[in-house]
Structure formats: C-alpha cells, structure tokens
C-alpha cells in the first residue's frame, strides 16, 4: 500500500535495496512486459485470422513482424523465464517460512538456474540458428 507514501524520484533512485529490490523490479517489469507483448500478439493473431484482408490486417501484420523480431523474442523469453523462476522462489519461501534464513542464497540459486536456461536459447534466437 503506497497510498500514503510520497517518494520523490531522486529519493526513489537513491534507495539502495540491493538484490531483493532488483528481484522485485525485474519481476514487475517482466510481468508488465508479458502482458503488453503477449496480449498484443494475441490480438494481432485474432485480427489476422478473423478479418482476412482490410486495413486491420496491415496493422496485425506489422504487430506480428514486430513480435517476431529477434529483440522482442529475446525479451519475451527473458520476461517469461525470470518471472516464472522468481515467482517459484517466492512461492517456495512462502510455503516454508523457515527457509527465509537462506533467502539470499535462494536468489543466487535462482540466478544460477536462470542464466543458463535463458542465455543458451537467447543466443540461438539472437543468432537465428535454425534446426532441421
């Protein structure tokens, strides 16, 4: 509840929350990013299939080629994986509160799991490696 809190932007930027703040911020950015990009992609797909031809199709095609561009694909991959793994960490720590003693270690474990399963497909997508 930030309803009564008034924090100026310089104050907010000066706040050094470290790892937990970074996790919260990335979780929120990733969540908003998924809603924006994937929601847009679903609507574009709907217009492509539901309304053949017409002006809506031009917009839908533009949105589709934007969504399928490599930076957006890599961002969506990052967002989905980070949001999922961070959410899993939160669920596990909430379920077994005694594990909160190791909440910092849990973040490092999370990075250790996240980085390989994000970076390997991200490189393959960014380099456009095709299979088969």
């Amino acid at each position, binding site marked *: *509840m*930030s*309803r009564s809190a008034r924090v100026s932007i310089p104050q907010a930027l000066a706040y050094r929350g470290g790892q937990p703040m970074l996790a919260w911020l990335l979780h*929120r950015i990733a*969540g*908003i990013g*998924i*809603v924006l990009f*994937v*929601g847009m992609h*679903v*609507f574009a*797909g*709907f217009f492509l*299939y*539901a309304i053949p031809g017409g002006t809506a199709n031009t917009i839908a095609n533009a949105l589709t080629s934007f969504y399928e561009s490599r930076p957006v*694909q890599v961002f969506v*991959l990052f967002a*989905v994986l980070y949001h*999922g793994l961070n*959410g*899993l960490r939160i*669920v596990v720590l*909430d379920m077994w509160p005694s594990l909160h003693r190791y909440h910092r270690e849990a973040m490092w474990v999370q990075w250790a799991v996240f980085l390989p399963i994000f970076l*390997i*497909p991200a490189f*393959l*997508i960014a380099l456009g*490696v*095709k*299979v*088969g």
Partner: protein
Amino acid sequence: MVTQAGAARRSRSKFELYMWFFTRVSGIFMMLMGAYSIIYANLMGGRGVMDAGAQTRWAFFPISFHVSSTKVELTPNFQNPFWQFYSLLLFAFAATHGANGIRVILKDYVRHPVLLAWLNAMVFVLWLAVMGAAVYLIFAAQGA
C-alpha cells in the same frame, strides 16, 4: 452502517486472499503445463526440427497454427479437443494471472479512486476481449 462497511471490507479482503491464492496456483500450473507441452511436442516428432524460438513458443500455446513451420505432425497429435481444452485452460490461467497483476500494480500507483475504478474496468474489459480472441483462435480458426 458499521456492520455493512465491515462486511464489505471482509469480502474485499476475501477477494484479495482468493486472488493471492489463484496467482500462486496458476503460476505453478502454467510452468507445469508449459513443460508438458514442450516434452510432448518433442516426443511427437519435434526433436531436431524445432528451433529454440519454436520450442519456447510451443510451451505457451500448443495449438496447430502457432508453430506451423516446425514439421511436427499436428493433425493427429494436437488438433483434438484435449489440446484445445488444454490451450484454453493455459490461456485462461495466463490472462487472469496477468490481469490480476495489472490490477495490483494499478492499486500501487493510482491514488485517485475514480480513476482507479475506471482503469480496473478497462483491465476487466481487456481481459474479456483477450479471452474472446483466444476462444476464437483455439476453437474457430482451426486449419486457417
């Protein structure tokens, strides 16, 4: 008056509790269902012919036209009521999880109650629209 307000607050907090619980459960379900989609697509002939992007896309929406370039045999394996229902369930989890997340974020940053109510109504309308689009894409756009 007092009891009414108390009841409203109680039901409000019940709603928050249910949404909190739903967020956890749907998050875990989305991960398990995505993993199952990838594994099944690879077992059904996707291994070696799906590139990294197709693998990741398949996780979220395992329905015929989504990854048509991957040479997975779709017609017997994925164009059936089980996978249609599976996709709809996965999508409903995702859309509701996302809409609720946006509602929580709006509550954090929007202080004006009337504006907040309008924005929440807009989120609800967008949720309905995206669910309608998904129902069309899953059940009506087959083979398009």
